[in-house]
């Protein structure tokens, strides 16, 4: 008898119903961290010059966001209110250090490319914001899902922006040439691709273009999802 109740409780703790699905999907559209909550912009602008960089960054943020939510939520009853910021920061900093060391060990060129921006995940407001707003008040499993959802919502915008910037700025995606001519074209003009007429626009690789692309995305998102338009 005692065993069955224990099993039932365990199922309840890890259930995946409508509420849990909402936790995952809400940040993708109605409550997107970047276009609606305006959190974590700094890294979104800096790492989106190349698709691969953005992909690694998104994976890192999903990891940090999910596990910091999980850990904070497990400790939430024993963290004193006055020092909760520092405790949260230490948890995040620990996870980010793990990510940094893994990258350093297995993908050194990528680590060099991302430079300080891996470290800046610590101050990425999405992570901190979710800990403060959700994980401090909810059970571990739900907080974990919320962390994953917000990390993915952030990652999707990052990947869209990076894809736009790399295609128009370098004519390639993930290092793979799509539009514009490759270097071989200089030697043999017959290797021209269909989109060979396109001349890569260097402005798209520079910082300000990230602002314009995200601004445009916000415009499109709000025009499509009318309830997000703010009147102020």
């Amino acid at each position, binding site marked *: 008898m005692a065993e069955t109740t224990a099993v039932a409780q365990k199922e309840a703790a890890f259930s995946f119903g409508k509420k849990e699905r909402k936790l995952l999907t809400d940040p993708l559209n109605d409550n997107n961290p970047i*276009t609606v909550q*305006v*959190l*974590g*912009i*700094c*890294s979104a*602008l*800096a790492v989106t010059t190349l698709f691969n960089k953005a992909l690694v960054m998104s994976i890192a943020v999903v990891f940090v966001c999910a596990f910091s939510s999980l850990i904070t939520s497990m400790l939430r009853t024993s963290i004193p209110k006055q020092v909760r*910021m*520092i405790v949260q*920061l*230490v948890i995040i*900093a*620990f996870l*980010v*250090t793990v990510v*940094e*060391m893994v990258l350093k060990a297995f993908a050194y060129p990528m680590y060099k490319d991302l*430079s*300080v921006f891996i*470290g*800046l995940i*610590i*101050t*990425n*407001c999405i992570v*901190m914001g979710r800990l403060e707003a959700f994980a401090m008040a909810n059970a571990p499993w739900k907080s974990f899902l919320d962390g994953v959802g917000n990390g993915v919502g952030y990652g999707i915008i990052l990947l869209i922006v990076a894809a736009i910037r790399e295609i128009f700025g370098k004519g390639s995606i993930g290092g793979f040439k799509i539009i514009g001519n490759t270097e071989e074209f200089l030697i043999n003009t017959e290797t021209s691709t269909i989109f060979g007429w396109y001349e890569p626009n260097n402005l798209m690789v*520079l*910082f*300000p*273009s*990230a*602002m*314009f692309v*995200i*601004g*445009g995305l*916000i*415009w499109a998102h*709000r*025009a499509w999802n009318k309830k997000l*338009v*703010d*009147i*102020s």
Partner: protein
Amino acid sequence: MADLANIFIKSAFIENLALSYFLGMCSFLAVSKSVKTAFGLGLAVIFVLGITMPINWCINTYLLSETGILGQDFTFLRLILFIAVIASMVQLVEMVVEKFSPSLYNALGIFLPLITVNCAILGGSLFMVSKEYNFAESVSFGLGGGFGWFVAIVAIAAIREKIKYSAVPPALRGLGMAFMLTGLMGLAFMGLMGIDLASF
């Protein structure tokens, strides 16, 4: 001395933390709705950057590096220690300011705690490490970077106050327009990038 002035000008205008590196964008966009609040936050950032930069420099040089007092390479602890220093300094500064200068405390108000998660502060410290500045240079870099951030946020707040009265498409109003404006300001600041101070 001329060297320090160069670093100050360079970090304030040519390598502006907000408009060239886009650091501290979250609070930059959230708090730039009016010039008054932007002014307060800008001052607080100058203050905190100017204080934490030298402290983090000391920690990095005397505690973490191989030539420091511990004699071993502890640089993997850099992130945790830097953020702990920033968080505790912000707390300390808040208490000291509250005790000795209530008027300044009221002016800075809620912005001091917000600064802990401003990436310009941590980013500044990390840049200082990667640029290998010495003590005096790191002070100059901190103050210059803070000043640049201050100028940028006050300027964007002034523009956003004016744009409230313009006919912006509804979906672009507010946040979307703020992004576009920051992009345009970033373009303008890129014009300063090619300046070589040594040639003057």
